[in-house]
């Protein structure tokens, strides 16, 4: 990949008191590329996302957006730099309608003060179109987000990020709570976003969801990076074995076999 990375981490570390949550992470994510961040529970994925999205600030190291060093003070600040995060809890309000959620905090307005109003017709039309662009036909943009399926909710959050000009899209475990069909739907959104030239960071612990859509894989384990690999350089099984700490897994398998033997007897 040539050109400037859309977002880059240089030797980033994060400590909470004496606990080292992340150490010396290097990562480059280019436009039009899906960068999968893989790791088991406790590997430091959540901490890394929170650094990338502006919830936390790094203890050490630099974050660069389009080659320039930045310091995100909040998720809103990060969004201002074009780094949008779709959190696991989605950042949507279930009791509010699709279009109200879509434009929350950035409502289009019409009319003159003091009769300035929320332009609901425009909001509905734009929300409907933005959703259609990622491949979801909304029946009614005024229906509550709570009535949508998990995959459709993801599409609202992703369509919103794309519409508001995100350059980097961070997806935090978007498929973890979904069934097979819904997960496939979300993977389709990821490809849509990639085709639009966004840099996508896809966090998951599910290799079966990551491998088909990923271009690059960064593997995390115990707060450190286990390396970054292009898809051509690594097989699915190799990813899996590095993720789980390689050696450990064979040891676990041996233990289980021994256990089964004892039960048989």
């Amino acid at each position, binding site marked *: 990949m040539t050109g400037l990375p859309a977002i880059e981490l240089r030797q980033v570390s994060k400590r909470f008191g004496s606990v080292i949550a992340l150490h010396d992470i290097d990562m480059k994510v280019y436009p039009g590329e899906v960068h999968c961040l893989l790791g088991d529970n406790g590997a430091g994925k959540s901490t890394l996302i929170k650094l990338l999205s502006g919830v936390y600030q790094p203890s050490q190291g630099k974050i660069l957006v389009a080659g320039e060093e930045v310091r995100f003070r909040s*998720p809103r600040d990060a969004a201002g730099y074009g780094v949008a995060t779709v959190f696991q809890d989605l950042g949507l*309000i*279930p*009791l509010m309608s699709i279009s109200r959620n879509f434009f*929350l*905090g950035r409502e289009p307005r019409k009319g003159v003060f003091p009769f*300035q109003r929320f332009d609901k017709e425009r909001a509905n039309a734009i929300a409907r179109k933005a959703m259609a662009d990622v491949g979801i*036909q909304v029946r009614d943009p005024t229906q*509550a987000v709570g009535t949508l399926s998990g995959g459709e909710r993801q599409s609202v959050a992703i369509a919103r990020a794309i519409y508001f000009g995100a350059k980097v899209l961070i997806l935090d475990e978007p498929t973890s709570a979904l069934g097979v069909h819904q997960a496939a739907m979300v993977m389709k959104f990821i490809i849509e976003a990639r085709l639009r030239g966004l840099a996508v960071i896809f966090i998951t612990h599910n290799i079966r969801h990551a491998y088909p859509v990923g271009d690059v894989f960064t593997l995390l384990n115990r707060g450190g990076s286990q390396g970054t690999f292009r898809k051509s350089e690594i097989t699915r099984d190799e990813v899996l074995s590095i993720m789980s700490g390689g050696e450990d897994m064979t040891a676990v398998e041996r233990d289980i076999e021994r256990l089964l033997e004892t039960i048989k007897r």
Partner: protein
Amino acid sequence: MTEKSEASPVQGVTPKNITGADERLAAAGWFTRLLRRPESGVGCGLIATAIIFAVLPGAGALYSLQGSMTFLTLAAELGIIAAAVALLIIAGEFDLSIGSMIGFAGVVIGLTVKHMGFPLWAGIASAFGVALLVGYFNGLIVVKTRLPSFIVTLASLFILRGLAIGITRAVTGRTQIPYILDDVPDPWVAGIFNGHVFTGFFHWMGTLGWIGVKSDGSPFVPGIPMSIIWWLIVTGIAGWVLTETRFGNWIYSSGGDAAVARNVGVPVARVKITLFVASACAATLLATIQVMEAGSADTVRGMLKEFEAIIAVVVGGVLLTGGYGTIYGAAFGALIFGLVQMGIFYTGIDTDWFKVFLGIVILVAVLVNNYTRAKALGERSTP
């Protein structure tokens, strides 16, 4: 995309090309859509209540012009504060100090006009000034400390009531301030709050014998009381702000999920503080109306009004947990309240039973709310 189920080959089933995602979602008919509106439950409740009192004895008196004006005035007085309380509850906060604020604002008007020689307009302006401060401090403490507003405003409830009684007794030696409207330089100001509109029309109807008149020829009901007009104005503004403006979107989001709202840049603290100010101001408006009508201020005015307002709001389909509901629902709730209160009076049933009835109405309303919310979320439970 806006096709209704009529366009569907099978009634109640949406054509596949419309959803694209899930053909199992049935199209919502107009009736379900109506039911999904937050005020649908209270609308049905209002109709049911009106019918019940129409068949009970005393219906003639209740639904006469005089009876109607009486229960509408009761509804209006409650409705003015219910509109503000509804906004606040939708934004996820409570204001229990609103009843005490009514008493306190009345005392401010009484003391400034009667004992400090303020003209009426300045006395009323002072009361609203105090309301701004009280609302601001309530809001600021809730937002800064992140304590539940229930506790913070419970404290204000006692502080304001205590101040009202303490100050009044210290200054006047009593707990009431009578004859406020005597000798004021601007008595016309009182008319804005205690007058009637359409008096000419009502007089004309009286001369035609359409409505009852006194022996001097003036009608029993001189016009529509200003309190009802104020109720309509307050409800109109609050309803418009909630559903039509950006600020309204922020109100819903602050109550729906404050963390999410903050994340996308909604100034949640500002929204909440503004609404605490609005609720204190609504209490002051009601206090002004009452003081102008009675010509006196009483330190115990507004006692329990905070709970009556919450009842009207909850009966009106607003979720106590915030994020859902409408102002029109709260207005319907206030209407039921006024109707039941006067209805029981006219039926001749001992009015002691009013509270029993009230309790049952609350319980039914909450159950209906639960059901309508499930409808709104398509039977899906969400955190």
